[in-house]
């Protein structure tokens, strides 16, 4: 095997690792397994894993900039769906854009910068699309980002359904499961003290009074507008503020119960 073939195999291995959302803990064993190059051989040819990861990330940065620029230029429904379709065909880039856990070998500041730019260009695309929705542009961008983050758990039936939905729908048409299913929410035993127990998983949680209020409403409805209206009727809070808190809380809930 020549050195360039060897390097190419490692880079391909890292691509698959990223595609499977396994960038949280990049080890030599992992890279060895995914690249098909024995660990000992790998370590003989490279000074450290950081070097090869850095080189892979540089390639990915360039590609991510192209994706971000693509969304910046969107001015039609077809253009948006084309860009979204392209992104969804590149799972390794998607993981870099939305995955929660990224190994420290990958520069966090650059990742944060790329994610910020992506969100901004997505927001601009949504503004240009001038769709009709009662939700703000920021909220729609948030929902698209949220749905993309759910897609990175590859292999699940739910993930494939979300990919299909993102490929054919504009942001305000996406079926966004903001909250865990009603079945899950309703089975939770919620005590006045803020203690929450899930009788299926056996896990328990503690919630503050705001979270408790939302959770109790959620056991009746999952409509964000309705929840916002109940909260603003009951508490002295701006509708936009309440809505943001509800969306923030929904991310936590999905993380805990999905």
């Amino acid at each position, binding site marked *: 095997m020549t050195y360039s073939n060897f390097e190419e195999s490692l880079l391909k291995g890292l691509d698959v690792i990223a595609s499977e959302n396994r960038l949280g803990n990049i080890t030599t*064993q*992992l890279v*060895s*397994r995914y690249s*098909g190059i*024995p660990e000992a051989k790998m370590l003989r040819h490279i000074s450290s894993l950081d070097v090869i990861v850095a080189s892979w990330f540089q390639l990915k940065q360039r590609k991510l900039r192209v994706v971000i620029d693509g969304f910046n230029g969107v001015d039609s429904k077809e253009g948006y769906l084309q860009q979204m379709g392209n992104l969804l065909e590149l799972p390794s880039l998607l993981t870099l854009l939305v995955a929660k856990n990224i190994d420290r070998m990958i520069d966090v500041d650059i990742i944060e910068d790329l994610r910020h730019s992506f969100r901004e260009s997505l927001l601009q695309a949504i503004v240009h699309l001038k769709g009709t929705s009662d939700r703000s542009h920021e909220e729609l961008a948030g929902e698209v980002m949220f749905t993309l983050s759910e897609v990175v*758990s590859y*292999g*699940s039936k739910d993930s494939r359904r979300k990919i299909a939905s993102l490929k054919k729908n504009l942001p305000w048409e996406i079926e966004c499961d903001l909250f865990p299913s009603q079945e899950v929410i309703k089975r939770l*035993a919620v005590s006045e003290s803020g203690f929450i*127990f899930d*009788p*299926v*998983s*056996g*896990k*328990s949680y503690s919630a503050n009074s705001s979270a408790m209020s939302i959770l109790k409403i959620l056991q009746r409805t999952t409509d964000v507008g309705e929840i916002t209206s109940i909260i603003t009727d009951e508490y002295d809070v701006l509708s936009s503020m309440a809505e943001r808190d509800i969306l923030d809380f929904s991310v936590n809930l999905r993380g805990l119960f999905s």
Partner: protein
Amino acid sequence: MSPAPVIAITGMNAKPDNPGPGMAVARCIKESAELKAKIIGLSYDVLDPGMYRSEYADASYLIPYPSSGEDALCSRLEQISALEKIDILIPCLDAELKTIARIKPRLEALGIKVLSPNEEQIDLRAKDNLPRLAQMAGIKTPAVTKITSADFFHTCHKHGWGFPMVVKGVFYDAYIAHSPAEAVGAFHKIALEWGYPILVQEFISGEEVNLTALGDGKGNMLGAVMMKKRAITDKGKAWAGISIADKRLENAASKIVEASNWQGALEVEVMVDKNNNYYLIEINPRFPAWIYLSRGVGRNLPELLVNLVLNEEYEDKTTTNYSDYKSGVLFIRYAEELILDLEKFESMIMHGFTNNLS
């Protein structure tokens, strides 16, 4: 009048990091409102604490290790039964179950009834049979292969195996290995203690949920109790747990019991991964050490087993009345010291017997 059977229970060891289930089984029966049972503790070691706990064992006897053979065990049980008139034997340790299954007719001739799995059922739950059982249960199981050489760990990547992986003995012990070096260490450690072959199992990252129940031998599963571990010992045993109500786990276990006509106690261990896939990890053909939780949730399974043995027509109300099952009941295990008179210890060493009532 309440029945007052004499019940012999094995597995009265209670090492904090890996306790046997015997003491917990005895405790469940002693706390039964229906039964006024006399408990005879059976142990292999003079330092098994359950033998000396007068609350749980009225009298205790040493018995020979399963490796001593069926005749030795049978004749010791005959001796003990001549003194105590044993009605029921509840075996609680994996290693003795096959021997007990084989001598069951001889025990019955002595008037000792046993409700435990037969040899075929015990073989069925062997670790290398898991794929077949998982198929019965309609759930997945981690990939598993038998090996006899540690060289496997240096070439396994060519066959799609990756680290971490679980290296297990056929009967006992399991280690999670993160590298070939760790795997080789685990391989030799297990081989030294338990012999060959060694099993290598795909590592499933997730959360473990367990179920214990009784099979009536006719395909019915009775009194399922489910538990999620909340704290574990170094050996992965439950140190604290909470009862749960997981229908999917219950259905999977019920299918295994139905397909195998399981008789007696069983514990089903399942791992649930982040995508909510259920993987069958292991089946134990006995009550688990956390069986006292069954009393806590209102489904006292050792009591139910005794009632089923005493009366084949016994109606199990716990299973039919599902709404009475309590999820969210916790147990927390703890260790304490038992103070023992030298006379009792001497009696156990010299005569293999102690009477806790005297």
